[in-house]
């Protein structure tokens, strides 16, 4: 048995015999009243509880740990492996069986509970705590180590363990809640099984109607959503591409400013862009007033509906496409383009036959992101929707509206899911099995080809209006916080900032303003979830692209699933799934962190995959040939080359956590309130001033956060020549690790 396996065993025993098994009420790290009665009672360890007869069903799990421990001294890898696999599998099965069978009184699965040694429906246990967590982790790792001993994944413990952990996490935090909510699609209001109602709801005219084509009414909500998502996906991808090409491949002035401006919309809390658009283009908006007074163009309500939502979504999501595409454009090896030019191709020919095909995976990813983001977007349709309904808002109001129809919400979620997964499938078909590798271990020192002039003009033509509109919107947001009522009364005032962010120094440092509490909570949770998201996302991407194992496609599908599920549905399903034992974490900060991680993970995975598909496998193989383990290869070869992807994942998850609304609106609690939930409240109450002021503070803060992340992680060094010393990229910070 290898030392690392011994360590895993130690973890297991720590969790089983010493650390409290359950999550006791009122636990804290400063007061220890909750520990009363240890090692028995509510905060008891599994071993003590099992032996004293309080929880006899925990005993077999211990027995399996003993079985694994007996292998400590043995060195026959195959037979130790077989026993570890057996112990791990049986342990996990027993663990989950008791967890789901024995929960609250009168719930769970009474037959199974009785079988495991409980008293049927009468036995109860609370939510699993740290002891249980460590034990299940240890059992899982034992299983993975056993598999590695048997030669699975070339006997690499790191690979099998990573796969195991990611599968467990995805199973618990994506599949389990999703199944919980989809189950409610098949039952009627009273809770009885009703498949007929399901089909009736699924094929109703409100979802699939074609009224906008055949008559002068509205189309079904499914068509609306689809049209909007395709338009948004295409527009954002084109804008992002134009912007990435302009920034990296031309001598255009003002690059730095543009780079900043394009990132701004992502760090803007939802509702705010919509709000600013209304203040600008609404019927009594700034622009509409000017047009009316100067040119007598009648005021209209065009902003409410498809055009308005599309505009807001393009402003909001084009930067995401940009972030994805800039990594890809950066990674395209100039030597390929140089080769093309050496062979006599003109700039345009090089672009269309070399550069463009290499851009395809990035474009497909960017489109997919825009498409899925648009489908899941909730804030903009809410503010600007008018009579144009989309699935995400319809789901939200099916849950919280006057109709209170959870089954309807689940059916709509089902349709939404089908769309996003369909897009995912088409993308895979389009990319096929071609190779997009451009970063190789071979000598690579070309200069990036400048763009052909035609493309430069076209890109510039698209980008300038976009950037100016963005600038105007941010001007409105900035000014809005400092005037009394935007749109009517432009008296300068600091009142909004005082209400939200005043600090009282008379009693020492006391954060007096009403926004501080949610502000601090949001930062804390976002800062914790960003690195977790990046690690899990990139690790998954690495496994998906670099390791061969059965069930790989299923894993890829699973990571997309959490992205495809609209936030509202995820929020409700998390409450349904995690409000009762075995995993009882609603009302804690942990559930928010988990939501952030699993909502944002697909971005880490996508950008990781896009980045990895450019890095030649020969690099990994060289490292492996030199007898490095996969962890070493990942850490020292792949990760440094993946810096743009890592930055994208970190930035994106940090920012998205800070600006998420739909997924967390059900999950915020009094103790853990978030900025966005607070801002939504202000908007609802009509206090636009405070909402905009708070948003400006968030924007400034997130811009600073992004700057820090970029400074800390730096850019990858590809050892390419740089055109001129002036255009050198900012000096990379010392490599981490």
């Amino acid at each position, binding site marked *: 048995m290898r*030392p*690392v396996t011994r*360590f*895993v065993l130690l*973890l297991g025993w720590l969790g089983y015999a010493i650390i409290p098994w359950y*999550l006791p*009420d*009122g*636990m*804290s*790290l400063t007061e220890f009243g909750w520990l009363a009665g240890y090692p028995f009672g509510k905060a008891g360890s599994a071993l003590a509880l099992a032996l004293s007869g309080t929880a006899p069903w925990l005993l077999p799990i211990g027995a399996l740990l003993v079985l694994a421990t007996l292998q400590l001294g043995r060195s026959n890898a195959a037979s130790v492996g077989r026993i570890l696999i057996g112990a791990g599998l049986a342990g996990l099965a027993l663990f989950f069986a008791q967890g789901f069978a024995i929960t*609250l009184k009168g*719930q769970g699965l009474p037959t199974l509970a009785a079988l495991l040694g409980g008293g049927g429906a009468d036995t109860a246990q609370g939510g699993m*705590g*740290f002891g249980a967590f460590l034990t299940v*982790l240890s059992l899982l790792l034992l299983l993975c180590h056993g598999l590695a001993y048997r030669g699975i994944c070339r006997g690499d413990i*790191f690979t099998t363990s990573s796969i195991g952990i990611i599968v467990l996490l995805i199973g618990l935090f994506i599949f389990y809640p999703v199944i919980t909510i989809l189950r409610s699609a098949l039952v009627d*209001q009273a809770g009885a099984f009703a498949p007929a109602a399901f089909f009736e709801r699924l094929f109703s005219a*409100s979802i699939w109607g074609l009224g906008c084509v055949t008559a*002068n*009414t*509205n189309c079904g909500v499914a068509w609306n959503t689809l049209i909007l998502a395709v338009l948004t996906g295409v527009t954002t991808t084109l804008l992002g591409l134009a912007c990435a090409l302009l920034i990296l491949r031309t001598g255009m002035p003002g690059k730095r400013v543009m780079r900043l401006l394009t990132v701004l919309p992502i760090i803007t809390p939802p509702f705010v862009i919509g709000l600013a658009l*209304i203040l600008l283009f609404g019927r009594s908006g700034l622009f509409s007033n000017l047009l009316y007074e100067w040119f007598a163009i009648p005021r209209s*309500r065009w902003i*409410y509906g498809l055009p308005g939502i599309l505009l807001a979504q393009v402003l909001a999501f084009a930067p995401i496409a940009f972030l994805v595409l800039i990594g890809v454009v950066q990674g395209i090896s100039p030597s390929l383009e140089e080769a093309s030019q050496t062979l006599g191709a003109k700039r345009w020919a090089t672009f269309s036959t070399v550069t463009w095909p290499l851009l395809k995976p990035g474009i497909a990813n960017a489109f997919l992101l825009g498409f899925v983001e648009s489908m899941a977007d909730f804030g903009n349709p809410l503010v600007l*929707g*008018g*009579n144009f309904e989309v699935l995400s808002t319809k789901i939200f*109001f099916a*849950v*919280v*509206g*006057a*109709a*209170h129809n959870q089954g309807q919400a689940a059916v709509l979620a089902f349709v939404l899911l089908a769309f996003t997964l369909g897009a995912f499938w088409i993308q895979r078909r389009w990319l096929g099995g071609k190779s997009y590798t451009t970063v190789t271990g071979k000598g690579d020192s070309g200069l990036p080809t400048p763009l052909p002039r035609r493309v430069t003009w076209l890109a510039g033509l698209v980008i300038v209006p976009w950037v100016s509109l963005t600038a105007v919107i941010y001007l409105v947001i900035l000014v809005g916080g400092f005037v009394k*009522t935007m749109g*009517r009364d432009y008296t300068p005032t600091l009142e909004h900032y005082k209400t939200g962010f005043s600090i009282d120094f008379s009693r020492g440092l006391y954060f007096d303003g*009403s926004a501080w509490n949610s502000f601090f909570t949001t930062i804390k949770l976002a800062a914790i979830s960003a690195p977790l998201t990046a690690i899990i996302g990139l690790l998954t991407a690495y496994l998906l692209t670099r390791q061969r194992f059965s069930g790989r496609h299923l894993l890829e599908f699973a990571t997309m699933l959490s992205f495809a599920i609209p936030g509202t549905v995820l929020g*409700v399903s998390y*409450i349904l799934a995690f*409000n*009762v034992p075995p995993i009882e*974490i*609603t*009302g*804690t*900060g*942990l559930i928010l*962190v988990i939501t952030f991680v699993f909502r944002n993970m697909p971005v880490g995975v996508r950008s990781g995959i896009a980045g990895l598909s450019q890095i030649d496998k020969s690099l990994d193989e060289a490292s492996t040939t030199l007898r490095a*383990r996969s962890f070493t290869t990942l850490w020292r070869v792949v990760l440094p080359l993946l810096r743009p992807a890592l930055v994208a994942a970190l930035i994106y998850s940090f920012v998205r956590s800070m600006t998420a609304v739909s997924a967390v*609106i*059900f999950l915020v*609690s*009094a*103790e853990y309130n978030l900025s966005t939930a607070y801002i939504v*409240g*202000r908007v*609802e*109450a*009509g206090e636009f001033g405070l909402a905009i002021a708070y948003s400006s503070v968030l924007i400034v803060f997130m811009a600073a956060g992004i700057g820090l992340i970029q400074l800390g992680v730096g850019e990858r060094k590809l050892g390419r020549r740089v055109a001129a010393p002036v255009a050198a990229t900012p000096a990379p910070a010392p490599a981490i690790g």
Partner: protein
Amino acid sequence: MQGYQWLRASALAMLATGAAFVAAPAQAQGSLVMYCGVQEEWCRAMSTTFEKETGIKVAMTRKSAGEIYAQLKAESANPRGDIWWGGTGDPHLQAAEEGLTQEYESAANKDMQDWSLAQWRAAQKRTIGIYAGALGFGFNTQQIKQKGLAEPKCWADLLDAKLKDDVQVADPNSSGTAYNMLATIVQLMGEDKGFDYLKALHKNISQYTKSGAAPAKAASLGETAVGIVFIHDAVVFAVQGDPIKAVAPCEGTGYEIGSMSIIKGARNLDNAKKFYDWALTPAAQALAAPAKSYQVPSNKNAVVPPQAPKMSEMKLINYDFVKYGSSAERTRLLTKWDKEVKPLPK
């Protein structure tokens, strides 16, 4: 060994994050978890004042009534909240009907207005009225003048062809306010005539908004000429000095009863009862007006804020909360509205 390091590092990281963030919700004596269904400022005033007066620590979350109802339902196996204070009465009644809230009879009941106790009886003691607000509409004075219209005073005035695409009301499927209007029109005019009215009104509706109070905001900003809302929602903007005027329709109108319920299985039941008793006192109900909420309080001895719409001067219908609050009737009316009114061409 690399694998070893990796494992140790990740295990430590997981433990550290876990330990820092799973402080289980406070259960200690002297705390109360409050779900608040009115606007933030009022919620905050209620929770901090109660905290100051009793020393009981209040953990307050503000959400719309529909969201709170959805949360109660989701949490019903393992309730987290203790008291649900505020928000329109229908979801409170629905929660009572489904047994999500529990019975309570306060000593303060004797001082309550009749409508407050009617709500309490309708819900089998599971919810009580804490404030009332009449339904009406707010109109933008500048827009109406520009259109050359006389100030609208009645439901019938809203059918004027000059108001085409210039009236807003929320979608009754998503908003309790709009459902209240639907039920009011049906009770006021009878079901057939009521639906005829709604169909005629449909031609003038520019947008069925999601949130119930949104039309008031839109009218105050001039995004629409008329917004059908609870009158106190329009008064808020009028008090701020916006060009909006609130109207109680001349034919008669319905009203909402903002309610309070104790959540079934409350972990801090005694404190929830203390809060319940306290929230019915005149002093607690006087906290509304300074927080820019101009509803009519339910305690007979409470001071009615001067800005509050005078219920006594309005023609109020005898709103049947039992019938129109039941889920069967609600589903029937909403389905009918969805079929007969919403899909109509403009």
